[in-house]
């Protein structure tokens, strides 16, 4: 029963969606840089990486997932752009992980790992542990999909 509920919540689209988004972002990158080569490759790497994450966030669910929303917001803040949020009733999680009235009652082992996860998963700072687990699951799925797409692209483009 729990797994059935999870399947509804943690839906990840097909690889094609990810590929499409990524390639679109790449093409956008290329249009943004009409110059042949920027000064340093690190910037390019960073740009590509950012493009990868943004495309992944868009492909995964746009602003419907917490982590994707946080990712997009973070990216937009760097670019000084505003992210468009779809009008939707959002469930606000009131619990903040840092403040705990009864910290002893929560399992310390789980909480330590949850803290580490929060640092890794975007938008994890304001989530409860149970919600964090859901977001982590979806994030892992999307990340793996993105990695596969990029790997295919790299393999396709690499000279044989």
């Amino acid at each position, binding site marked *: 029963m729990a797994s059935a509920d999870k399947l509804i919540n943690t839906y990840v689209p097909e690889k094609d969606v990810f*590929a*499409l988004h990524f390639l679109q972002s790449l093409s956008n990158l290329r249009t943004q840089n009409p110059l042949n080569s920027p000064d340093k490759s690190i910037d390019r*790497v960073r740009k590509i*990486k950012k493009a990868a994450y943004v495309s992944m966030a868009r492909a995964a669910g746009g602003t419907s997932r917490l982590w994707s929303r946080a990712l997009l917001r973070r990216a937009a803040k760097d670019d000084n752009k505003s992210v468009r949020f779809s009008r939707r009733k959002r469930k606000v999680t009131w619990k903040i992980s840092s403040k705990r009235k009864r910290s002893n009652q929560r399992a310390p082992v*789980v909480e330590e790992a949850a803290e580490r996860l929060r640092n890794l998963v975007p938008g994890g700072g304001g989530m409860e542990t149970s919600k964090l687990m859901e977001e982590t699951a979806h994030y892992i799925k999307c990340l793996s999909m993105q990695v596969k797409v990029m790997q*295919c*692209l790299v393999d396709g483009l690499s000279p044989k």
Partner: protein
Amino acid sequence: MLEGLVSQESLSLNSMDMSVLERLKWVQQQQQQLQQVVSQSSNNSPELLQILQFHGSNNDELLQSSFSQFQMFGSGFGPNYNMGFGPPHEAMDECISRTSSCHMEPVDTIEVLLKTGEENRAIALKNKRKPEVKTREEEKIEKKIKVEAETESSIKGKSNMRNTEASSDTSKETSKGASEIQKLDYIHVRARRGQATDRHSLAERARREKISKKMKYLQDIVPGCNKVTGKAGMLDEIINYVQCLQRQVEFLSMKLAVLNPELELAVEDVSVKQFQAYFTNVAASKQSIMVDVPLFPLDQQGSLDLSAINPNQTTSIEAPSTSWETQSQSLYNTSSLGFQY
């Protein structure tokens, strides 16, 4: 009441006993008199002897048999002893009458005895049953009270829990209840044996179960988590996996960055449109895509990195296109193309 009855019966019993004893003695005396009479009369029927012999045996049988015999003899004696046994005849009649009357009485006494005995036993049983019944009833009442309390508290508990968490109800219903009758808290929700029934602890438990369920789901997703047992190890594995994936993304982006600048990045609108058109037609048939692919290296001049690729590498171009066109599973299955995934 029963006690009074018992007392009366006991008194009657006593009286009956005395009367029975008296009558027995009296009968014995009569028999002795009869013996004397019989001995005097030589013509004795063996029945008298039998009667006398039976004297020593059970009184009941004796009495009954003797009474029957007496009745016979009474009738028999009558004609025989008309002359000299007038008064004994009368006495016999009397005794017969008395014995006849007695015939019933001892039987009655016996029956009464039996009845009283039974009644005594019955009374004893009843007395025994009464406390048993009382205890049972008390137990029932207690159980009823408990059940009522349980129902009330369960209702309260359920209403309370509904207010707090919705999923906790399902989790509590799934958990079995054992030995909760002992604890009659005002919130009586089915909890596991040996665990507190605090509201907070129940909520905590429900929360922990939720988290464990989600962790099990994560365990299925993350490869290699099955070997490690325990929450800590699993969580470490999960964190490690997330870090690995993020590193992989970074590495692949570096690779792409390396690949791309080798080839010119200038993009012409036509190629971009074609590129985008290609991806919009992802679900299209193979033929259209195969048509598009040879166009790429021909039309573009440095628009894409594909342009600089020799026709030798058309296969490599085709491979990803076909793989993207088909289902995502084909990407996994294209081992011949050298894809890792």
